[in-house]
């Protein structure tokens, strides 16, 4: 199907604009991280860059399927969520030099059955969101990542950013939702995160953080082998 650029539906233009704002911000931040590492004389971790790009590419390919409510074909294998959380934190270290990030892992390893590329992307997106909102609003930003194991495996991502009014908490994860005009990004990333987690039998939830901002709660079922 072909489209005339001057006659796109207004809603399509709006959603594309939101998507592009978030995507270009994500990629330019990645470039900035790499430039920053180069300026500091630190080695460039191209494996990390490739991992991020692959995961992003998978996200873009998944989104049309999700929009049509088609199921994702997950490539599940046993994954240690503690290791994944460390990898995500490590990949954003340059940014966390500006916003301190405390990582607390209470169960190590924490095994789940999951699609590594997609879950890495989901956790990365949630952590990036926390970093982004915190950085934009305050100079003394703080992010906390917390992993605990109970009836399920939970990752909590807390920030002391602006938070989200209770009225909008239930709407987070809707692609068309944008709460702060001055902050790049859109609801696309949380929409994707919610879909991927639910495809794993998990969930994405939002609540007020003890730090004053937003708490993102990711829950995933234990690996079958670890509960047997």
């Amino acid at each position, binding site marked *: 199907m*072909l489209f005339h650029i001057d006659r796109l539906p207004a809603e399509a233009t709006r959603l*594309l604009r939101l998507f592009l704002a978030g995507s*270009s911000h994500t*990629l330019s931040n990645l470039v900035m991280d790499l430039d920053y590492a180069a300026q500091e004389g630190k080695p460039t971790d191209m494996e990390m860059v*490739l991992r991020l790009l692959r995961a992003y*590419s998978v996200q873009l390919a998944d989104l049309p399927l999700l929009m049509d409510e088609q199921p994702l074909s997950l490539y599940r294998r046993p994954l240690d969520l503690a290791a994944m959380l460390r990898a995500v934190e490590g990949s954003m270290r340059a940014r966390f030099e500006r916003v301190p990030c405390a990582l607390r892992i209470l169960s190590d390893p924490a095994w789940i059955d999951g699609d590594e590329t997609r879950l890495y992307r989901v956790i990365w997106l949630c952590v990036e969101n926390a970093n982004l909102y915190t950085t934009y609003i305050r100079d003394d930003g703080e992010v906390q990542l917390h992993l605990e194991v109970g009836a399920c495996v939970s990752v909590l991502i807390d920030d002391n950013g602006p938070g989200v009014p209770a009225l909008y908490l239930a709407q987070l994860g809707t692609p068309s939702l944008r709460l702060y005009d001055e902050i790049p990004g859109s609801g696309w990333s949380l929409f994707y995160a919610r879909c991927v987690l639910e495809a794993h039998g998990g969930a994405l939830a939002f609540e007020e953080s003890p730090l004053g901002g937003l708490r993102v709660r990711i829950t995933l079922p234990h690996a079958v082998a670890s509960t047997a």
Partner: protein
Amino acid sequence: MSHSLDANHETLDVLRSFLTENAHILGNLVMEVEQCLQESRPNAKEQAVRVLHAYSLQLTDLSLFFEGEVLEIYPRPVDLVIVVRDVVRMLAARCEEASCHVSMPPSPIWIRGDSERLFRVFLILAEMVCAHAAYGEHEMFIALERGEGLRITLSNTGPAISEERIALLGSPGHRLHQDLPHEGWALLYAQQVVAAHHGTIQYTQSPAGGLHVQVSFS
């Protein structure tokens, strides 16, 4: 829980086409970065970052386009020979199935422009011509020449393509063949960048039977 977007079919079609095309672009970008690193080329990391940066610029520019803003470039002297050579290097990973013949003058050809955006545009055009040529195991040609103005031509020897289909190039959602990736959104971007450089892009049938793309700067 339903994840459907509250949007009509046309809106969903627009989004679907954009996302599909860009998933492919990003997949190619990953391949290019991998190739850079595997070959242990000098400055491989810098090249990889450059490709990433150029794509990031494309997305930023498109977001401004949808805000209704006109693309502005900050011109600096750019040697087009170097830009096109860099594109050919990046394309090497995907040109294995389509022999690529390059003809460029030995000396620099300077224009005033934005090297990163021009790099991205020529990569978009070269990828399209290469994918089209490789689909039918044809050859492709890239030539840079100075006449009354500057001309960069990218062409292939096939597969054959109709004038009707050529006329649709640059329309979002378009692709040359159902087995080839979408290229409409990227060509729309290429058009904007070249226009911002006071240049034009023309798509025609190649005398050899395939696709002929000519970028001209006055």
